[in-house]
């Protein structure tokens, strides 16, 4: 069994009002050294696959098809083998 971590992040230049709101809130809390915040999604997937490579390929395909919208988002995948 493999576990994949998928990080979906906004591309550079795409407005992230949610990140801006978090940043403003942190400034209210007194954290004045924060320059920039970008928010994204973290998705965990457990799957059966013959090899780490096969798991990686499948999760990359899933990411491109559904998890990320490549018009505005990038994704990054990590795969590790785990006990069932």
């Amino acid at each position, binding site marked *: 069994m493999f576990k994949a971590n998928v990080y979906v992040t906004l591309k550079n230049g*795409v*407005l992230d009002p*949610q990140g801006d709101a978090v940043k403003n809130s942190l400034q209210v809390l007194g954290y004045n050294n924060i320059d920039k915040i970008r928010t994204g999604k973290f998705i965990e997937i457990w799957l059966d696959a013959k090899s780490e490579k096969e798991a990686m390929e499948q999760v990359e395909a899933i990411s491109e098809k*559904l*998890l990320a*919208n490549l*018009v*505005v988002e990038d994704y990054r995948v990590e795969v590790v083998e785990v006990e069932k």
Partner: protein
Amino acid sequence: MNFAVVVFPGSNADKDCYHVLKNVLNESVEYVWHQDTDLDKYDLVILPGGASYGDYLRAGAIARFSPVVDSLVNFADQGKLVLGIGNGFQVLSEARLLPGVLLKNKNLKFICDTTYLKVVQQDTAFTNNFKENEVVKMPIAHGYGNYFCDESTLKELKDNKQILFTYCDDNGEVSPEANLNGSLNNIAGIVNKNGNVFGMMPHPERHAEDILGGTDGLKVFTSMINRLEEVRV
């Protein structure tokens, strides 16, 4: 004319569209469930507003993979007319039938309001009953209406005259203040290059009777009927 209104789990403006077509315009209209795939008998398909699949992942992202949308891609390829309103616009962009994407509103709020729109292009299947540069009023109700695309896509949209409506003030000024959701260039509605697939965030079906505050939205529907009648002749 045979109209279809697609119903996804979470659609909420399907009945409004159906009502306008059936009771205001006396057209033949049927609901099509998202699991259905046969669109052959319809002249025009409407993807209504709402929050299909709870807007999970991204607005429209899950609905995009429903069986009816596969058929819809084929339907659109044949040059038949498709209108996506609100969530329907989001589904069309996720399905890549329209370029760009609809992001969270700039102010992070769900906006329920009535806004002015400028008719940027009048010579289309969806706006031919408006006057060029006409300023009209329509309701909006969305959390993800902030239109975005990259620079080359924006240039293409302009060059091909694909922008049909922009947010403006009551004088027709396309200003940042009138841009409630933060859309790129105040874009409220775009058509595909072929001119047969149109997506807009405002709700024309909710301004189609005087009792509901105005009839500007009705012209989107009568424009489409005009075009279908032309094709039929």
